[in-house]
Structures are given as structure tokens and as C-alpha cells.
């Protein structure tokens, strides 16, 4: 009897362990399956004209996505310029001034919810407060939407990274008579530079792949646009339109754009992780 009981327990144990191993294999298999398809189907369309030419008229061969590439870069850069400084300052408040306070606790809680809030709702919000009053879709509206999505991500990582700077460092600088803000900017920021860089890179990677909030804000454009108050093409929105469209040519172009954006996002994400690893110990 005991023998049977013992065997049963052992069998259960091996079954459970095998199952959890299979789960991990399954997750990784999906990652490589998706990446493989994107790479194989996208590589064919990534020729020179893809990077240099405007889109061809519907159904015609040739053309590129040069305007969408610059559009994505432009919107991401503006969003970063708005979202990162405000996020770092807010994170500074949470870490340096309001550690135990009620305001900080509330901000932390709301920021954590905003991080995972549906991005399409942010798109509607920006449509209501910028696009409609201004009378049309615009680059700046798209950048605002992405900045709002970025903000809570930057706040939370900035706070975590600033908190890793030992209090003794702050006290040493304060003891020399430096004012608090100088201590924060010259000493604490410097200590947390690496971590904050990582957070910013992850946030940039995340928003540059966003589509939903751009549908109603920056919309789309078949031509070049550098104006802030005009609609702008982006890679992700162009993928959406092309993939949903009926032409084989469009699908090939969409796959090429998908490869470009996926490679970019994964590269930045992995690079950010390596920056963190460079930090000894933590």
C-alpha cells in the first residue's frame, strides 16, 4: 500500500513538473513562431525604395513607406520630449519629497492603473480635447496621446531607480551645504542615470509600436508631412490600413513595415535590458 502511495506521489510530481516545462516551451515557441513569420514575410519587402519612396497608389507595385518611417520617428521624438521630463519630475516627487505621503501614494496608485489603461481610450480623449477643437487630425495630437501613455511608465521607473540611490549619498551632499534641488539634480540623478535611461528606452519602445491611440489623432497621410498641425503617416497605422486592404502588394508592404517596427522595438527593449545588466549587483 505504501509503495503504491509513494509511486502515485512521484508520478504526480513528475507530471506536474513536465507540464510546467511544457508551458515554458509553449511560451517560447510562440515568440519564435511569430518572430520567424514576421522576419520571413517581411524581409522580401525591405528594399531600398521602401526607405526612400512615398507609397504607391492603391494596387500599383513599387513605392515605399519613407513618410511613415519619418512620421513614426517624429511623433515618437515629440512624445518623448513631452513625456520624459514630466515623468522624471513626477517620479522625483514620489521618491525625494513624498515617500510616505498620501499624495504620493495616490499618484502611485493612479499611475499604476494608467500604465495598463486601454490606449484606445487615450486616443478618444486626445481626439476630444485636441483634434476636434483644432479642426483636424495632427502630428501634435498623436504625440500628445503617446506622451500620456508614456508618462506613467516613466514616472514609476524613475521613482524605482531614484530610490535605489542610497540615502547616505544624499546625506553626504546635504551635509556639504548643497541645497536639496542641487543634491537631487547633480547627485541623485547622476546615480540613477543608468536605470532612468533604461526606463526611458522601454517607454520609447512601447509607444513607438502603438497603433490604437494614433488612429484618431495623427491619422494618416499619403505624402510627406513635417507640420505639427497636419495629419501624419506612421508605420503602425499604415500597417493597419494595408493589412486590412485587399491588395497583395499592400500586404507585402505591411509585412515589411511589421518587420521594421518589430525589429526596432525588440532591439531597443533588449538594449535597455543590457544597460541594466551593466549595473553591477542590482
Amino acid at each position: 500500500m505504501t509503495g503504491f502511495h509513494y509511486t502515485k506521489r512521484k508520478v504526480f510530481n513528475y507530471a506536474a513538473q513536465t507540464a510546467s516545462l511544457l508551458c515554458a516551451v509553449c511560451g517560447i515557441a510562440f515568440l519564435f513562431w511569430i518572430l520567424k513569420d514576421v522576419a520571413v514575410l517581411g524581409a522580401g519587402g525591405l528594399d531600398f525604395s521602401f526607405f526612400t519612396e512615398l507609397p504607391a497608389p492603391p494596387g500599383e507595385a513599387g513605392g515605399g513607406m519613407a513618410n511613415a518611417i519619418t512620421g513614426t520617428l517624429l511623433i515618437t521624438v515629440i512624445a518623448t520630449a513631452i513625456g520624459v521630463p514630466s515623468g522624471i519630475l513626477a517620479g522625483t516627487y514620489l521618491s525625494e519629497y513624498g515617500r510616505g505621503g498620501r499624495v504620493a501614494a495616490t499618484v502611485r496608485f493612479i499611475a499604476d492603473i494608467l500604465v495598463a489603461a486601454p490606449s484606445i481610450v487615450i486616443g478618444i480623449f486626445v481626439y476630444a480635447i485636441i483634434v476636434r477643437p483644432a479642426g483636424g487630425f495632427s502630428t501634435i495630437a498623436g504625440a500628445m496621446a503617446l506622451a500620456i501613455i508614456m508618462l506613467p511608465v516613466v514616472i514609476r521607473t524613475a521613482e524605482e531607480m531614484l530610490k535605489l540611490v542610497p540615502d547616505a549619498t544624499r546625506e553626504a551632499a546635504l551635509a556639504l551645504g548643497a541645497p536639496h534641488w542641487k543634491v537631487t539634480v547633480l547627485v541623485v540623478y547622476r546615480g540613477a542615470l543608468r536605470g532612468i535611461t533604461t526606463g526611458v528606452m522601454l517607454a520609447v519602445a512601447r509607444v513607438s509600436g502603438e497603433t490604437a491611440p494614433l488612429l484618431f489623432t495623427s491619422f494618416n497621410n499619403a505624402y510627406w508631412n513635417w507640420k505639427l498641425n497636419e495629419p501624419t503617416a506612421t508605420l503602425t497605422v499604415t500597417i493597419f490600413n494595408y493589412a486590412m486592404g485587399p491588395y497583395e502588394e499592400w500586404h507585402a508592404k505591411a509585412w515589411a513595415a511589421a518587420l521594421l517596427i518589430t525589429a526596432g522595438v525588440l532591439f531597443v527593449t533588449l538594449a535597455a535590458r543590457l544597460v541594466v545588466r551593466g549595473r553591477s549587483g542590482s
Partner: protein
Amino acid sequence: MALLDRHKADRLGDALFKGAALFFAVSVLVLMGLIFIVLLAEAMPALRAFGLRFLYTAEWDPVRSVFGALPAIYGTIVSSVIALVIAVPISLGIAVFLTEMAPKPLAGPIGTAIELLAAIPSIIYGMWGLFILAPLLADHVEPFLNNWLGFIPFFRGAPLGIGMLPAGFILAVMIIPFISSVARDIFRMVPPILKESGYGVGATKWEVIHQVVLPYTRSGIIGAVVLGLGRALGETMAVTFLIGNSYDISSELFNPATSISASLANEFTEAVDPVHISSLVALGLILFVITFIVLAAAKLLIRKTVNGDAR
């Protein structure tokens, strides 16, 4: 004198810097409030026109200008529940593997690989789902499910590869990294001494996981699952590609359906009728409120486990 001036300048600098930091911190709260207020204001015409019926009527007809949110709410919830049913066991399996089984040098890279699933943009999942996954489901998986499990009413409907089940499936793949990485962090908080006392009385690894680790981390794990739910509810592009855009409510999961986010993505820029636009914003408001509640609950549940450990 000069020293005093400098002291004054420092005090001013401090006040300005602290003020700026506080301003941006509070701006998050203002932002959250503004989003809610603006959505509510924009949704008012629809809510006034249809009242509470908006929530439970199933007709969505832009031509007659009659709108009910039920099909979209139904699709959002059902596709997210399908995603959880598939993703939760797999995610917990991954978390167990990473914390209890994988050798140290392997656990890091495997964990990173799983987390990379979260970095792939939603639109890529959608496109991959539409061009690669959907034909596969239509030709092989859905006929197979219908043959063997067709006696359950869920596994029926048009095997197009596009519909409620495919949307739920792609959502599952997308939320696995979120659930598994939170679950992994929570499993790591179990004090080693608890696990060791389990091994000490001769328990197997499975018995320790099942009877020590899981009970200890219960509320945190529920929190991780609820967090995954919050992510699934608001996910847009992948669902838009795969759910099929149909305002019919069907219990047969192969059939096309719609979700709040998919309706918004498809119709918002094309809507002209003010009531139509307002109804779409009302859908967005419903989604925002549901995800707010779900994510707040997740946060509180996870915090309970994390704080419990600190005490």
C-alpha cells in the same frame, strides 16, 4: 551678505524644484480625472438619448441611429474570459518553471524571452493572427474542435478562423507575459524556510508548490490573473483584426463578434452622426470604468501579498 543672498537663492531654487515636481506628480491625478470627465461629457448625448437601455440593448444600427452597447460589452468580456482560461494555467506553469525548476543560468534568458512577448506591438499580433493563425484555425483547429467537442454548444459556429475564439486565443498569447512575470515575482517572495520545512517532512516538489507556495501567495496570484484580465479587456489592434466585427450575440464561439475596442477602432473615424460618435465614446467610457475597477482590484490584491511578506 553674499552668503545670505546665496542662501536665499538656494531656498528659492528648492521651492521651485519641489513645486515643479509636485505639479507633474499631481498632473497624473488631474489627467485621470480629466479623461473621465471628458469621456462622460462626450458620451452624454448618447446616454441622454438611450438612458440605461444603452447598457442592455443589443441593437447597433448607425442607419436608424439606434445604439445599444450589449454586443460590444459581451464580446469584450467573453473574449477576455477565453483568454484567461487559456493563459492562466500556462502562465502559472511558466512561473513555477522559472522559480522552482529551471537551473539558474537558464531561468534568466527564458524569463526574458517570455517577457519579450509583451514587447511585440499589438498590431503585429493582429496581423500575424489574421494572415497566419486564422487560416490554420479555420482549416484544422476549428473543424477538429467541432468534431470532438461539438456536443458542447460553445465549440460551434462558422469555422472562419475569425471570431470570438480566435480573438480570445491571440489575447491569451498577449497576456501570458504579464501574468507569468507578476506570478514569478510573487512566487519568489515565499520565504525559503517555508518551502524547506515542506521538503523537510518529505514532500515532493509538486506538493510543496501546491500546498505551501500556492496558499501562501493566493491573493497575489489572483491579483496577477486580474491584472491579465485588465490587459485583455482593453487590448485593441489584435482583437480588431481577429474578432470579425459582427454585432450578433452568439454563444457559438467560432462566430464573428465584436468588442468595445474593436468597434472603436473600426467606426470612430468613419462615424458622422453625432449620436453615433457619442455612442462610441460611451463605449469607451464603459471600457475605461471597467478596466479601472479591474486594475485597481488587481493592484490591491497584489499589494496584500507583497505587504504580507514584509511584515
